[in-house]
């Protein structure tokens, strides 16, 4: 047997392979992205990136209807996008098994919110599984597929950042024979899969019964790890390991299947111990369910409802043990937030937006980093696709001359994901805002994945490349400009023309990401000539991490500017900022 150290995501990819899944689809999103990227290693599984999560879930539904196992993979907020198909998929049920992976991000390491997606299992009345390490991440997937088929239901499979991105040792296995069912294509199948009210009413009754059957299964499946009788703990996901470390003598009911909650097992534990504690990240879903059963327990009165848990957080919550490790007398530690890379093609545009003092309806991607100083050039960021539609709302709410100052910025992947409809809306309702499409030809924020406008599939094969100019023209945009964001004058000109145009108009930037699909370095780097430098600080306004301010400077100056030549890629943006010939090119 093969043993490997795998991240939760790598292990799930192996689980997808071993479970005989035929179709695996998704849209990138931290912390779920590496799952499909690793599935590609197994040509037996068909895998693709979809433009968004709703499309992905519908593709998975189609594959399940066609009688083959399928899986849709997304980050937690992706499930909001896919919620519409999810709730009715619960009604139709499956033909072959279908699992939906939701990768939640307690602590918001890389997300815009920390919603608890366990609510979705309850709301859609479907089962949820939650692995706690990589071995379980792989093995539990097979159970999830069996349950999907046995109980005729889509299954939610929830991981968190800490499971997805922690590595533990995994024993690998073989691929199961693929599960195959014929397509029904008859009256019975139509009653099952066509959700008109008459069919759906019948289905709702069945789903309530299905939940009771699932609860029985949950009672058999979830196990109590018996130890002492003083403290009993009910927990889910990675929190189980924290609970074990902090309460070594407690008996623990770990909910590998976290919905429906196994009522009999909970009662059994509650009856046996002096005190019942519920340890769950984010919302008190287990706790509330148990309290409704009339069982007294400790939960969110001690365990924080916000953020990620850890052994430290639990110790602080229950034993007040934190201050011990505080180190006194430290200097102020400068934060080190993520920043746009040196040479990032987004930088020049945001410098101009800031200079023009425009109201920027923002979106999600690397460009969102423009909100940080010194660029500080973004006014809103809500969810993927909200920039264009949001800008339209701003425009309609305020006076015309103010409205001229509203622009939206959106990445290529995000535009395809969910703002083509926003653009349609702006044109349809006679908006005049400027839409700036930052086409760096990749999904950079999540590590550089292909999408419908890169011309390549997940597997790297060539395919049709969505043409943004044609799309804009097709939906009725009259004025489309392309601009080179490495050229500040050209960027400024394009922006001025756009702001003067009385109608919906689009600006498209033309430079690719410097990291993906391949690293870009130009044939030179920049160095700073401290003799010429007047310390005006203009170059520092770009917020380029390669341009460093060193204090104190030479010859009694307050500071020197030093360009870090290991980081500089030679985009030359800073050369255009310097009026004193203090930044120069050097072969690098």
């Amino acid at each position, binding site marked *: 047997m093969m043993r490997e150290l795998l991240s939760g995501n790598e292990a799930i990819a192996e689980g997808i392979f071993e479970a005989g899944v035929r179709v695996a689809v998704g849209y990138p999103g931290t912390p779920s992205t590496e799952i499909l990227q690793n599935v590609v290693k197994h040509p037996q599984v068909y895998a693709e990136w979809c433009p968004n999560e709703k499309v992905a879930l519908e593709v998975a539904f189609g594959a399940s209807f066609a009688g083959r196992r399928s899986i849709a993979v997304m980050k937690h907020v992706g499930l909001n996008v896919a919620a519409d198909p999810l709730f009715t998929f619960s009604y139709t049920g499956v033909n072959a098994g279908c699992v939906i992976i939701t990768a939640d991000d307690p602590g918001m390491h890389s997300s815009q919110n920390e919603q608890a997606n366990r609510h979705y299992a309850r709301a859609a009345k479907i089962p949820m599984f939650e692995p706690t390490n990589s071995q379980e991440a792989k093995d539990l997937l097979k159970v999830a597929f069996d349950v999907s088929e046995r109980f005729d239901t889509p299954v939610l499979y929830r991981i968190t950042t800490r499971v997805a991105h922690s590595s533990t*040792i995994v024993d690998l296995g073989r691929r199961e024979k693929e599960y195959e069912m014929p397509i029904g294509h008859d009256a019975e199948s139509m009653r099952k899969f066509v959700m008109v009210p008459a069919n759906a009413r019948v289905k709702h009754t069945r789903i309530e019964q299905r939940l009771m059957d699932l609860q029985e299964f949950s009672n058999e499946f979830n196990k109590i790890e018996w130890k002492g009788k003083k403290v009993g703990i009910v927990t889910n996901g990675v929190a189980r390991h924290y609970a074990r470390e902090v309460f070594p003598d407690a008996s623990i009911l770990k909910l590998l299947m976290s919905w429906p909650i196994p009522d009999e097992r909970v009662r059994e534990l509650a009856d046996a111990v002096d005190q019942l504690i519920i340890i769950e990240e984010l919302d008190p879903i287990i706790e509330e369910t148990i309290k409704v059963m009339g069982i007294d327990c400790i939960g969110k009165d001690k365990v924080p409802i916000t953020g990620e848990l850890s052994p430290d957080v639990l110790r602080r919550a229950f034993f007040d043990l934190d201050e011990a490790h505080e180190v006194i007398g430290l200097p102020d530690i400068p934060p*080190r937030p993520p920043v746009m890379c040196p040479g990032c093609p987004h930088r020049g545009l945001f410098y101009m937006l800031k200079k023009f003092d425009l109201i920027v309806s923002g979106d999600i991607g690397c460009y969102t980093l423009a909100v940080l100083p010194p660029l500080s050039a973004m006014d809103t960021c809500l969810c993927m696709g909200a920039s264009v539609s949001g800008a339209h709302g701003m425009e309609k709410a305020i006076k015309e001359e103010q409205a001229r100052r509203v622009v939206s910025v959106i990445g290529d992947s995000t535009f395809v994901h969910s703002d083509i409809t926003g653009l349609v809306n702006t044109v349809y309702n006679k908006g005049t805002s400027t839409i700036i499409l930052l086409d760096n030809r990749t999904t950079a924020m999540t590590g550089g994945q292909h999408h419908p406008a890169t011309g390549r599939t997940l597997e790297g094969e060539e395919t049709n490349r969505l043409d943004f100019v044609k799309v804009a023209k097709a939906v009725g945009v009259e004025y489309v400009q392309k601009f080179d964001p490495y050229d500040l004058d050209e960027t400024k000109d394009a922006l001025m023309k756009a702001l003067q145009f009385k109608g919906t108009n689009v600006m498209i930037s033309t430079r690719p990401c410097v990291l993906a699909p391949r690293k870009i370095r130009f044939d030179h780097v920049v160095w700073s000539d401290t003799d010429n430098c007047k310390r005006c600080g203009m170059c520092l306004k770009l917020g380029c991490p390669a341009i460093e301010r060193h204090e104190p400077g030479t010859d009694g100056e307050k500071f020197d500017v030093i360009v870090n030549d290991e980081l500089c890629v030679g985009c030359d943006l800073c050369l255009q900022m310097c009026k004193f010939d203090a930044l120069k090119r050097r072969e690098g």
Partner: protein
Amino acid sequence: MVVDEGVTNILMCGVGGQGVILASNITSTAAMLAGFEVKKSEVHGMSQRGGSVVTHVRYGESVSSPLISKGRADYMLAFERLEALRYIEYLGEHAIAILNTRRMIPTTVSSGPFEYPDDIEVHLGRNIPVIVVDGPGIARKVGNVRTANTVIVGALSAKLDIPLEIWKAAVHRSVPPGTEEINMKAFEEGRKLAGSQG
């Protein structure tokens, strides 16, 4: 009962792009090949964009939490000086810190109100030994600046009871194909340096 008795806790911190993840891959692979249970935890995503990066590596007979608790790290590998201070609360009483000389000025200093602190060794070394490693200098001598991270792992290896043969295998399995030899050289230089210190 004490959970995770005999577990070795290694905290690695640095800046996105410095190879902290590769360093923790080499270390956790070595621990696995040596027959231990291993848990390694890292957070990707935003941290790759030049932000602060931290990984936790834990190994022993049996390991529960993938996260190291504050005050319990046995080793800290700081790939960048300032980052060592950021995670100083994790250091255990008998910890050893391995500090790379690399200084990377964050934008909050270059175009913000912060100052880059300069007495880092003093704070770090108040209670524990600090091994200072000129990672970039050694890596340049070896022939590739990008192997600075492997130099630091080499230094760590001198302090852990995992046999050299296993480390070699772990380096080979973890580094990009074609760079095995130069990384091994970098590793050995780091190991030599720390072997004579601390």
